[in-house]
Each structure stands twice: as structure tokens, then as C-alpha cells.
């Protein structure tokens, strides 16, 4: 089995960048909204720790996958929204495809073994 794919995407913590990229794909979100969105969409299974969310966002800023821009929150407060960059879009695409392949492979093993 070729292991060149990012296998840490299997653990929820390793998958966080991918999840973040996915939830801000349609529109820029602020940090809290990102956490909320992931929480909701996972039917309350995945709770994003703030302690993980913000350092991860910093890493993604550093990699150039997201950009931060000022916006107004639903509570009328000035806060930073994170927006997907072209580079982030490409990253998401590659992460999704490798994630798909790995889960598929694992499924295969679980089914046939």
C-alpha cells in the first residue's frame, strides 16, 4: 500500500485543516463560526477545541492557504474573517482526494479481511 498520502488526516485533529478549508470554501468565516459550523455539520460529534483552532489557523496563514480580513460579525462586532486563497483551494482538493483514497482503502481492508 503506497503510504505517501497524508495519513494524519485520519485522526480528527490531523483532519482539522481540511475541515477548516472545507467549511470556509463557500464563504469567509470568523473563528467562532468555523468551530460552530464543524460542530453542527458533524452532528455534534466533532468539537473543535479553541486551543487547537487558533494555532492551526496561524499555521494555515503561514502556509498561505487562508487569508484574514476584517469583517462585522452577526453581533455587530469587528472581527477577522478567514477566507480561502487559491492556494488553499488547491490544498483542499488534494487533501480531499487523498483522504478519499485512504478511507476507501481502509474500508476495503475492513470489509474483506
Amino acid at each position, binding site marked *: 500500500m503506497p503510504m505517501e498520502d497524508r495519513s494524519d488526516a485520519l485522526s480528527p485533529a490531523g483532519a482539522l485543516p481540511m475541515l477548516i478549508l472545507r467549511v470556509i470554501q463557500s464563504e469567509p468565516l470568523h473563528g*467562532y463560526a468555523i468551530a460552530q459550523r464543524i460542530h453542527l455539520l458533524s452532528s455534534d460529534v466533532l468539537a473543535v477545541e*479553541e486551543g487547537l483552532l487558533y*494555532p492551526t489557523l496561524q499555521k494555515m496563514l503561514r502556509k498561505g492557504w487562508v487569508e484574514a480580513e476584517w469583517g462585522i460579525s452577526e453581533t455587530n462586532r469587528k472581527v477577522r474573517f478567514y477566507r480561502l486563497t487559491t492556494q488553499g483551494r488547491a490544498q483542499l482538493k488534494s487533501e480531499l482526494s487523498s483522504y478519499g483514497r485512504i478511507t476507501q482503502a481502509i474500508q476495503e481492508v475492513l470489509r474483506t479481511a
Partner: protein
Amino acid sequence: MRELMRRIHYLLNWRRLDAELQNDMEFHREMAARAGRKSIGNTSRLREQAYEAWGWTWLDRLVQDLRYGVRILARAPGFTATVILVLAIGVGVNVAAFGLFNMVALTPLPVRGADRIVRLERRSPDNSTSEMAYPSFRFYQENARTLSAAMAVLGVPPMQIDHDLELTTASFVTANYFTELGTRAAYGRMLDPEIDAGPGAPPTVVLSYGLWQRRFGSDPGVVGRLIHLNGKPVTVVGVTPFAFASLGGQHPDVWLPIAQQPYFIERSTVLHDWTNSSVRMWGRLAPGVSTKAAEQELRALTDRLRRQHPEAVWEGEYIQSSPGGHLQVMQPPMYRVAAMIGVLTLLILVVACANVGGLMLARAVTRQHEIGIRIAIGAGRMRILRQLCTEALLLGAIGSLAGLALATMVLKITLAKVNAPRWLNAMPDWRVLLFTAGITGVATFFFGLLPALQIARQKQQKTTARQILVGAQIAASSVLLIVAALLLRATQHALYTDPGFGYERLVSVDPQLGRHGYTAAAARAYLDQMQNRLRATPGVSSVSLVKLPPLGRTVSNSNTEIHGRKVTIYPNWVTPDFFRTMEIPLRMGRTFYPNEKHAVIVSESFAREQWPGENPLGQTLGDGADKDTIVGVAGDAHINALSDDDALEQYWAAQQDDMPDMVLIVRSTGEAGSLAPIAKALSASLDPSLFPEIRQLKVLYRDNVAQIETVAGVVSMVGLVAVVLAAMGLVGLVAFVVTQRTKEIAIRIALGARPAAVLGAVLKQFRWPLLMGLGSGTVFAALGSKLLRVALYGVSNLDPGSYAAAWILLALFAAISMLVPAARALRLNLASILHHE
């Protein structure tokens, strides 16, 4: 790359971005509170983690370490100042040496396309010369396609401007010389190939900036003026720029087009004679042509030339090219000299590093307490090591900066003193800066890492490191001292030993008949007249002729082996009176008969090498028709190789054909200088177109010796610096050991130990390092100084006197620097120490 830009952007805007992040988290907290969830935890920890995500923490720690280091060093000003001073000397000496090398061999001349300029010289397995015949030059110039241009320079004896008493240096150059270098005249114009290349062009001269200032009072109106050079009218057309860079570091005061050479030197055949090697050749490689390709083409051309003019080409001759776009065209022997100087200066750095390393170790004891505390409150060994390395780096950087400043100052003074070309600049360029940075890194590694490792391991009591440092210092300074002693001995030898000929009252008179188109018969007539008239002059005791005059501009030699030993043979052609005039004793046999053929006189050493234990008289040299019989043996007299003890001489009787090349040697009974005007007047009465070059051998000899004196002086100074540094290091180390063992010493004395025994116990640990250092240094010096042999004026590189002197000096320094601090221990107040403990 983009990521790096983002990281730098973050670093620069860190405060703002951090505040923004804080705002984000503040908002998050508010929202979470609304949703009825608990607080989101420690935000400052989160901010810290966010900061770490950008990967700049190392920088923070470095800044922190640097701040701490500065505080620590500022608190020990004595230590800091000593270290910086020692490093400044160690680094400064190296940077100065490299700076000089850089100026001479690496900095490109400020001329057009300096990197494409090559120096071209004739070489063959048996012969080498720096000059070639002008027709050969023309042949290469016209036929070489790998050269886009070729320039020739013809050096001539100094010429007389109008009726000046002082003569002016002059060179003839091809008319393209300045246009190829891209030189722009300060006033008027430089030589122009369109105007000055032909022999029929009106005579023109370009003045040097210096001459224009001195001789013509900086008058711009000099352009167009008619002056006389050696009596020939010539028009000044221009002045070279102030910072003019010429090839080969040659800076004559007047520049003349080579096509005009026969106008100034009447009946000259230089421009047509295929056998008269007289011009230096330079070329510019055509675009895209490698040096190798050019050499290959020139080799083919040499073979073609051999077929056309066999007299112009040696057997196995080829043209050697060397990079010419620097101040000095570097030849392999010069690289050897440079490497040797490099080794000597690096030794200084070794001494300095070992010295500073010792100081750092000693200081570690006083910091034991502080470091202990830091480790106790949780600093890891790595953290301590990094802190110590940062401190070392800080010291290294400051010391090197000081060294760089020192070196720049030294270079500046040197440049001003030696009247260097104006375009040279003492300010460090990127090569010097890079070198300084590199050497700082190496030095810091050596003086910083070893002690830092020891300190971080909390093992500074161990003596091994100290002993290595002492050994290294002693070894390096003994090499330097031995070399310095050898050179000093050589200077003394040169100054106070008979060079084998009496140079005090001699003048050489070189009429350069060959260059004036004299035939052999005409030359003979002139020389006979001159000799007769000079002999009749009161105050002249003897006159003779020689082809290669003592300490002359032209040196000829050939390397061969005699019985497996490499020797350099200096041939010469002389008239019978030569040995008497030069005061070279004839040990055996007789001198030549006039024009004697198939007879040869050799020097004593030559005879000893060739026929050990046999009678050399009557032996033969050479074979076939060229067989020569030894008729005499002369004393050793290295008239053209003063410093080379391996030189052997071989003389032949001058023949009719040699006459145009002969030089007069005149011995006076009184002051030789007074002969100059007489010889000049005599020559003028025979042929007013001649301007013989008259040189006093005494002056030439002194100049020659002064050179080696300067070298010996510099090396001695460097050696002394090394030994003083080493002594300082020893003083510090011994004092440190004494302090460390104060209690033990006090108890020993209290128990009645004799002072000598106490001293012995303290100093015992330095015995082996001292001996080992001295031994290895001596071996290194003995091996390395072989390279020095030619500079030693006949002093053996194993001269026991020099070695002994160096050892004694070193031992003296070591003894004083160890005993003074150690003796302090004996005067200690026993009661108070024991009480205190």
C-alpha cells in the same frame, strides 16, 4: 519563498497581528458565553502557541541570549577588553594579510574587461623569459584568432626630459594599449591606434599624472607643448588619469608609442630583430574563448613561427598564459610565498584562539555559581551551551570588527608608505568581508566551543583542555619565533657576510648598444674606446665587460641536476679582467685569454658538485663540438642571485658576437658615484645618441638587502606578537590555577613545604604541554622552513643558532609568565586564608 516572505511579514507586524488574534479570541469568548459554554481557557498560552506556529522562537531566544550576554560581558570589562584585544590582533593580522593578497592577486584592475586580459610569456622545459622579440609579438598579434587584441610594452632605461638632472622612467607601448584598457585621459588624449601606430606618425608622448604634477606644475596647458626626450623633440598629447591602472603594476612617467622607438633610440633594430627578447606581451581573450583554447592556438602558432624563423623559437617552446587583470601577475612561486605567509598568520590566530579559550575556561570558575543556579532552576545543558556559544559569538564578532578596523588601518598606512597605484583602496571589499566573517566563525568555534562544552558539563576543573590550549599556544609561537629567528639570521648574514664580490666601489655602465643597432664590430670599437678612456681616468682602478651585469635587470639561469641534486646554473659571458674588477678570487687555474674559445670557468661550488674530490682543471663540460675545458675555478659570487645559496656560476669568454650586449663594469679607487658623470661624458663624446644607464652596485645591493630586512622585520614583529600573546595566556592560566589551589598551597606551606616544591606542584601540570608544544612546533618549523631556503641568503633552514635563540626566548617568556603569578602564591597571607576556609 513566498512562505518566508509571509513569515517575515508576520515578524515585522507581530504586535498588530497579535492584537488582532487577541481580538478574535475575545470575540470567541463572548460568543461562547452567549451560547452558555464555559470560558475558552488560557488565551495567552494560545497566543504563544500561535506565535510559535510562525517559527520565530529561535530568534527570540537569540535576542534574549544576546541581551544576557551583553550584560554579562559588560559586568566583566577587564575580561571582555582582553579578549577583544587578543582577537582583534589575531583576526587583524590575518585580515591584513588577506587584504594585501586580495589587492595584489584578486581585485580586478579597474580597466575594461579585466577578467579577459592575459599575460603571455615564453616558456620551454629549459628556458623561461618574461619578454619576447617584437617581431614574434607582431606575428602572434596578427595570427592569433583567440585573442581579440594584443598589447606590448617595451621597458627602456630612464630618459632625460629637456636638461633635467633627474631621469624619468619611460615605456614604449603599442598604440592600442590605452584604448584596450579603456583609459580616459585626464587632459588631452591617450595614444590612439588611428594616429600613433605608424612609424611615420609625428612623435607623441603621454605623461603620467604624477610627472605632470611634479614636473609641469599641474598645468593643463602642457598638452600640445614640445619637450625633448633624450634630446629628441616630441609633442605632449595627454596626461594619464589620477587613478590610472596599468598592466603588471608598471607605472612609468612617460608613455611613448612603440612605433616611435627607433626615433628615440637611433639605429635601433629592436622592432625587427627576431632574437632580441625585449617586449612584454599581453592579450585580450576573444569573447567565449577559454584560456586553454588560446594557449592551444598559440602553441600551434609557435610551431609555425619555428618553421619560418627557427632562430626566434627555443626547442620545445610554448606560450604560457596567466591571468593578467590584477595588480600582480601571479606565478606559482608567488602562490607558494602567499601560502607560507598565510600559514604564519594563521598561527597567530591559533595562539589568539588558544589564549582566549584559556581565558574563557578560567572565567568559567567564577561563573560556576551562576551557572549552577541556572541549571538548578531548570535550564537544560543545551540551553546553557547555547548561551555560552552566543557569548562566544558576541565576543568573536566584536573582536573581529576591531580586527577588521585594525587591518584596514594597517593597509591604509602601508599603501601610503609604498607609494602604491592610486586606484588601490584599503577599504575592505566583499572578499575581505567574507574572509573576515569566515575566519571569525572558525576562531569562535575554536575558542568558544571547547570551553563551552566543558562548562556546560560542569567539568571545568579538568586540566586536559587547559593543557591542550597551552600546548597549542606554545607550538604555534615556537614556529613563528623560529621562522623569525631564521629570517633575522639571514638578514644579518646578508648584511655582514661577503657576497663573494666587492660591490662597494663598482658602477655598471649599460650603453644598450644592441638596442641602438650597433653591429658587433661597431660595438667592439665603442667598448674598446670606453675601456681605454675609463682606464686612463684618475680614480679608476679596473674596467671590464660582462654580458649579465651584477644585480642587473636581466637574469638568466637554467635548472639542471648534477649527480641527482637540483641546482640552478647562472651563465655569464665576461672579458678577462672581469674577476679582477669584481674582486672575485680565482681559486685555481687562470682567467680567460681575450676571446678564448672552448674554455670555461666555473665557481668553486660548481666544481665541488660536479667533480667531488677531483681536480676540476682540464675537465670538460658539454659534448661534441660545444665541448669546453675548465681553465679556472672562481670563488662563489652569486652576482644575480644574492639570496640563493644553491646558485652555481659558469663563465665563458665574451666573443665578438656578444659585444652589442656587453655592459661595462668600472671599479673606482674612491667613491664610485663620482664616476657616473665621467662615464656619461665619455660615452656622449663617442656617440651622443647613446644614454647609458649607470648604476652604483652599492646602492643596488643595499636595496636588495633592505627588502629582506623589511620581511624579517615584519616576521619578527609577528613572532613577538605571538609570543607576547602566548605569555599573556600563560600568565592568566597560571594565576587561575594558583587561585584555584590557594587552600592547598597554604596548607602545604603551613606544613613546612619548601617554596620550590610548592611551585613545582602547582606548575607540574604545564610541564608536558610546554615540552610537547615546543617539540611539535620545532618539527613543524624545521619541515616548513625548507620552503624558505631561497630567502635565507645561504643560512641553513636548520641553523642551530636560530632554533636555540627561539627556544631560549620562548622559555624565558614562559618561565616569567608562569613564575610571576605562581610566586604570588608564596606571599599569600596564610593565616587569613586558612581562617577564611
